[in-house]
């Protein structure tokens, strides 16, 4: 026991108490909220759903153990194994197409024993690691040209294309945004940035024409013109906004939001847990939650700035970016400022793969923090 906020750990690395407390706080909010979100089902025929908060606790415990492992082993070991993990991940992602079970028209899951897992979730971490390694091994002083970034772009594009084909637009978007944040750490020539924007725009517009499925387009168009369609996709967005607005300043109270309790929120435990939270706790609760996520992201940047090597710094930024983009997109879509794409809210949304991924990410963050 030395200074407040740091506990000695085998006389070497120190546990980052700020990171720990912040994570525990969000996870606690998440579980409590999940209880409220699924309480509707307690007396119904689908009472199994009412117990998923218990499974969420299990996943967080399991995730916590893995996170301890991820924090304990020096992150620099990962650097050597980065490509090995990365290609392993790609193989798993390809296997999805062979082995996957269909959920709502998209195949994302591989069934292992009694539970399924989503390789596309874990790829997020593997992508961060492999990009961190690439940047670590490629230090430069002068601004980079377009070609200098070809490898990291390719490393991102391959898994992004694979999940797009599942199809899973949201996850692909997270890959691209997280990778862009990591790559954004290096200096890039202005002209390359310009051409990047041009090519990016072309890819987006081409994918609109050729790659996106109708339901994905519908989600985006209904976001751009919400009044046009209030029965289909726009309906979900509208009900979510209504739930948030219904919370008001102080909220309806725990398990008292009518939008959730009367079943007007779609996917209230996976895609829209924030709407449940906002309805129950109001603006005050939401402000606290926003502050917690915001603080976690900034703390990740802080850890990056303290890291002793480029690999650690990129790793920390990567994990921070992953959490940031998830939180921003999920809450943004619940509030109706962003289109509805299936992106989870870290530690709030129910789901084993999602929880484990975030926990591993937090473990890595802790790892970097402990070895500055």
């Amino acid at each position, binding site marked *: 026991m030395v200074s407040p906020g740091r506990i000695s750990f085998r006389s070497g690395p120190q546990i980052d108490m700020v990171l720990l407390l912040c994570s525990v706080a969000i996870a606690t909010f998440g579980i409590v909220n999940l209880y409220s979100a699924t309480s509707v089902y307690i007396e119904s025929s689908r009472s199994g759903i009412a117990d998923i908060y218990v499974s969420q606790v299990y996943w967080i415990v399991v995730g916590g153990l893995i996170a301890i492992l991820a924090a304990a082993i020096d992150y*620099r*070991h990962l650097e050597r194994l980065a490509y090995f993990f990365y290609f392993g991940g790609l193989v798993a992602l390809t296997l999805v197409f062979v082995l996957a079970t269909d959920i709502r028209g998209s195949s994302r899951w591989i069934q292992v024993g009694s539970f399924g897992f989503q390789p596309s979730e874990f790829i997020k971490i593997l992508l961060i690691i492999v990009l961190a390694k690439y940047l670590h091994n490629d230090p430069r002083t002068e601004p980079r040209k377009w070609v200098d970034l070809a490898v990291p772009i390719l490393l991102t594009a391959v898994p992004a294309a694979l999940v797009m084909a599942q199809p899973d637009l949201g996850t692909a978007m997270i890959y691209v945004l997280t990778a862009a944040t990591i790559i954004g750490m290096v200096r890039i020539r202005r002209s390359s940035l310009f051409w990047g924007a041009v090519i990016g725009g072309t890819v987006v517009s081409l994918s609109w024409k050729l790659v996106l499925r109708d339901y994905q387009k519908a989600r985006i168009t209904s976001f751009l013109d919400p009044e046009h369609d209030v029965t289909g996709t726009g309906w979900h967005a509208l009900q979510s906004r209504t739930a948030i*607005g219904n919370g*008001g300043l102080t909220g309806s109270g725990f398990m008292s939001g009518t939008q959730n309790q009367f079943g007007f929120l779609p996917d209230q435990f996976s895609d829209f847990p924030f709407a449940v939270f906002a309805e129950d706790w109001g*603006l005050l609760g939401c402000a606290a939650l*926003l502050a917690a996520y915001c603080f976690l992201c*900034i703390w990740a940047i802080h850890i990056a700035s303290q890291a002793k*090597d480029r*690999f650690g710094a990129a790793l920390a930024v990567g994990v921070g970016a992953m959490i940031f983009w998830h939180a921003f997109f999920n809450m*943004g879509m619940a509030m109706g400022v962003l289109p509805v794409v299936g992106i989870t809210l870290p530690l709030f949304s129910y789901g084993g793969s999602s929880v484990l991924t975030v926990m591993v990410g937090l473990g890595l963050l802790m790892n970097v923090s402990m070895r500055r």
Partner: protein
Amino acid sequence: MSILVQRSDVGEFRRRYRWMVLICLAAFLVLFCRLVLLQVIQGDYYRAQARRNIVREIKLATRRGVIRDAEGRVLAANRPSYNVYVVPSELNLEQTWPRVVQFLGAQPAEANLLRQKIVDASKDDRRKDQQLLLLVDVDRDVVALLETHEDELHGVEVVPVPVRNYPHGEIGAHLLGYMREVDADDLTELESRGYHPGDRIGAVGIERRWESYLRGKRGSRKTIRAKRRMAHREELEAKYLDEPRMIRPVPGRDISLTIDVELQQSIEKAMRGQLAGAAVVVDVRTGRILAASSKPSYDPSIVSGGQGIDATRDAFRRLYADPLKPMLDKTISAAYPPGSTFKPFTALAALEEGIIDSATEVDCHGGYEYGRRFFRCTGVHRRVHLHEALVQSCNSYFYAIGAHERMQIDRLAKTGMSFGLGIKTGIGTNPEARGRMPTRSWYVRRYKGAFRGGFTLLSAIGQGAATVTVLQLALSYAALANGGTLYQPQVVRSIETSDGTIVQEFPPRVKRLITIDPGHLSMIRSGLRGVVHEKTGTAHAETVEGASMAGKTGTAQVSHVTPRGVDPGKVWYFNRDHAWFAGYAPAEAPEIAIVVLVEHGGGGGKNAVPVASRVVRDWLKLRERERTPHQTAREAANEEEGT
């Protein structure tokens, strides 16, 4: 163990951290601002929206007012009918649906169509929780089955919907009118007055004219759309429902008519031998319409949709294809040349102008020369005075009046119009034909300046361009009978609440007092009496025993234009003139005026007189009974309820 050699330059990243922090803060600030907007600034809006989501307002049906005749007998009422609704999200398609199909007795093809309808609705987040109309006017036995098995049929609802029913069928149909479903055009106008798609509204007749009274007002009841937590319904309702939770429906007003349904039936019976025509009976002391009948008629129960939409569609197709025009209210919506029934008014005008008196004599040799034309009479009547001219319907006498230098066509029109002929009566039940009393200026306009004296001669015998409606003529004869009071026609006597309390009564309204010299009037009336009671009278032979009445026969000439769609073999019928009888009864102390028009009934009123005299005879019988103490049907009903 040293795993990694420190060889990287962390400095390259350093300049980015501040930007990242700023972007992160900005992003969360944007989200926070959005939350402030949603939760605080627009909070009330979304709270109301959320409340609307969970509160369901159930409409409570009202009861349309009953229409009764003067004696309290029901002419239009409501019959219960049942519609079947399902709530797609609550209906189990695997287990419940096959049972529903079994109870409905639906054919597989029909069942599949209905199933598809449910499946479609259940895919729509908005509609899946709402009632979906499955079937209308389901058979009673099916209703009984569905209601006995209510517990097993979760998500199926049987909703009673009253359907308009007219127990007397075709009798008085034109006057009563019928109901129709409101269409999209109506709704833009009527939605603010509480009409919804699928509602019924009075289409014509009393049903339309008094719609706002008959309709009543819907009630509503709020409930919670508790899908999963049914156990706490009351608790939830107390928590989430605003007052008032229930608004009781207000039943429509009942309407009592001046019509006597027995008299109406008597007309129907008397007209049995005729294909088409119209008859009106008015009380000469009040202007109240005691009976109004138009033939052929239709069954308002069927066209109102009481037997399903297919029956309604078929009925309309048939009715509109019929060359006898069953949908037309021939008592007021069509105008015909009055023919000889106009002669009393010509005579009055001539008497007032001093052109004729009781001693004026005209020699009828089968017609009248006027200029180079010969105007025909119905026969050779020889020397006639006013009395014989009316009794025998001598045209020559009236041609002479028309030809007199002091008689103008406008004078004839003025007399006719003072008796309400050629002027809308304002009864308001159905679209009214105005009719026409042609004036000199009308002819000038119509024939491009060429007015000829012959027009006045034609007008004097009620031919030419003059037209009147059956109701106008009845009111004008009522004025002859009562000494010159022209009444506003009345068909509604009072408006009552559903428990019988009178809300509004309509006393008789005089439209105009016509100044008639009593001497002139008695000459006319003696002539009209002679038409029926003297051997030479045009109505004498056809009048049935025991009908004390006075009146005038008439022929309305028909232009020989065959209506479309008529079988060539039946053209002779459509080329025949219309037969009139206009009069009042009893002859000495008149109480009713009666006008009968038999379409294509032939010349001389031969076919109209028996109809009128039979009705008068029946009316006399009814009046006898009325004078003995009796109960009205309403009183009898009330007494029964009391015991």
